[in-house]
């Protein structure tokens, strides 16, 4: 039963072939064992549910366990966004995306480990310790949704909910050999997600296959009165396509040339040939401002973060430094003790970029670059239906390899950040192996093109026939 996709598990429960209680318990035992083992396991989880009878009326996802990234607030369940500063926090309310999955019948299995406040590309910046990649335990799973990706790849959860600000669903999905999708900005409510960069944050699925991604997206996407920027999606269809006749795929040299390692380019090239065999037309497109996306992102995201993270001051929740004599030193010491090194770096970067005298040179300019990047995508989608690229410039790198050099870590997101700035949807599917490690293929489409995007990904997935078994061995 652990081999079943979420969709197949839901169907087996609905038909009575499978007991929802047995299904939940099988996953719960595995997740609890991983939590217990810490770094002797994969360290995927920050919290695992207790034995819970799955009851209630039949529902579309009845009894299907779901793992949820730690930064989603769940009422009375520890929710720390991977940070020490939220130690002991048990939210008094539940995030909309989680509430929607639950009301469709899904059962909360666990909270997943992540980079602190979703800042990172390796899941090494966590108060709960690093997550290990199930393909090779000496390597990172990617981040920031690294616990979600590793858990799904290793078969410790049927599927997981993550968030993506600059690549935090797609990049770990690629490095762990699973499917990860960042929906159009606004498709899914951000209510109850502990905020990183509010104009970029978006929740989405990490799953074993494309059909499961469509299924989760269908249940989480909706306009929500609690998030004024949420719009929802039109009905997400089940992906069924097996051919790509007439589909125009654009290859942007800015995302698939310089800086991409040879083994990744090889797998990417082979996937393009597969797409052609399925009937797709491959064309070159330009995204002239994509090389500046990372710079703009590392102004805008830290600027928003420095503002969003101002609320962690030891007053209302979580950690408070002991023994401070006055209010200001209580704030500054709590934040010193509670935040990890990368979070401090980004708060400092954002505060600097927003400070008097630098605002226009950094924040103002970055917002204008963002306009140019969105214009680049709009122009490209005039001539092609979707843009394809590698998801990550490299396969999973070694633990510790990039922790001493923040810039090297930031470059992990060079292929995923442009779509985030433009707000367009993108999906990563596994397309092959390089040196025994998974390579991700990214497909991006115009805003709200999710159903067509999933269909194209489904056709490619079928033809590529990626075997993820090694990660569950």
């Amino acid at each position, binding site marked *: 039963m652990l081999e079943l996709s979420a969709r197949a598990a839901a169907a087996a429960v609905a038909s009575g072939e499978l007991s929802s209680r047995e299904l939940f318990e099988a996953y719960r035992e595995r997740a609890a064992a991983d939590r217990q083992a810490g770094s002797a396991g994969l360290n995927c989880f920050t919290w695992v549910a207790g034995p819970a009878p799955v009851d209630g009326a039949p529902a579309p996802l009845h009894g299907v366990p779901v793992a949820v990234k730690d930064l989603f607030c769940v009422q009375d369940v520890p929710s720390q966004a991977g940070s020490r500063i939220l130690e002991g926090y048990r939210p008094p309310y539940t995030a909309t995306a989680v509430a929607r999955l639950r009301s469709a019948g899904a059962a909360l299995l666990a909270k997943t480990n992540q980079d602190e406040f979703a800042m990172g590309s390796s899941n090494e910046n966590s108060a709960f310790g690093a997550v290990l990649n199930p393909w090779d335990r000496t390597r990172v799973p990617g981040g920031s949704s690294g616990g979600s990706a590793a858990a799904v790849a290793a078969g410790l959860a049927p599927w997981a909910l993550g968030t993506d600000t600059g690549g935090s669903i797609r990049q770990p999905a690629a490095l762990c050999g699973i499917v990860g999708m960042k929906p159009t900005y606004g498709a899914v409510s951000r209510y109850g997600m502990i905020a990183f960069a509010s104009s970029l944050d978006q929740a989405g699925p990490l799953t074993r296959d494309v059909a499961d991604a469509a299924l989760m997206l269908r249940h989480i996407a909706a306009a929500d009165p609690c998030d004024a920027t949420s719009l929802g999606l039109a009905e997400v269809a089940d992906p069924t396509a097996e051919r790509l006749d007439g589909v125009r795929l654009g290859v942007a040299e800015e995302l698939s040339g310089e800086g991409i390692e040879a083994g990744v380019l090889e797998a990417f090239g082979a996937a393009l040939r597969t797409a052609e065999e399925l009937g797709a037309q491959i064309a070159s497109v330009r995204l002239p401002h994509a090389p500046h996306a990372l710079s703009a992102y590392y102004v805008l995201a830290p600027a928003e973060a420095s503002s969003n993270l101002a609320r962690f001051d*030891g007053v209302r929740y979580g950690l408070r430094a002991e023994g401070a004599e*006055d*209010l200001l030193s209580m704030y500054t010491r709590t934040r*010193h003790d509670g*935040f990890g090194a990368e979070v401090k770096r980004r708060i400092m970067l954002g505060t*600097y970029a927003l*400070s008097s005298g630098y605002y226009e040179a*950094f924040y103002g300019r970055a917002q204008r670059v963002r306009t140019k990047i969105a214009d680049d995508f709009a122009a490209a989608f005039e001539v092609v239906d979707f843009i394809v690229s590698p998801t990550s410039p490299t396969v999973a790198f070694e633990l510790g390899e990039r922790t001493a050099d923040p810039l090297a870590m930031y470059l992990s997101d060079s292929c995923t950040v442009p779509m985030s700035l433009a707000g367009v949807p993108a999906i990563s599917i596994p397309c092959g192996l390089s040196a025994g490690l998974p390579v991700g293929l990214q497909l991006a489409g115009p805003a709200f093109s999710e159903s067509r995007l999933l269909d194209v990904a489904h056709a490619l997935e079928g033809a590529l026939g990626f075997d993820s078994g090694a990660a569950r061995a």
Partner: protein
Amino acid sequence: MIDHEEALSVARLARLQLADQEVEPMARELSAVLDHIAKIGELDLSDVPPTSHVVEISGALRADEPRPCLPREVVLSQAPAADDEGFLVPSPQA
């Protein structure tokens, strides 16, 4: 690009204490990232409007009607220090 003094000044703005040995590495790492970011200074962006948000929504206001909020004791239950009335903090003046 960022020196010791500037790092301390930004840390004060960010309400973040930095230990003495943390200042120099922070200044160095920020400078390296800012050097990279400075490339956007090369672009001609004079006629380009800024994008603060990709979703075109305006006036997304709810009806101005009173409705229940979380009970006070529930909210205060998460605080490191509270009494029945509100959050407790050290005095602003030591």
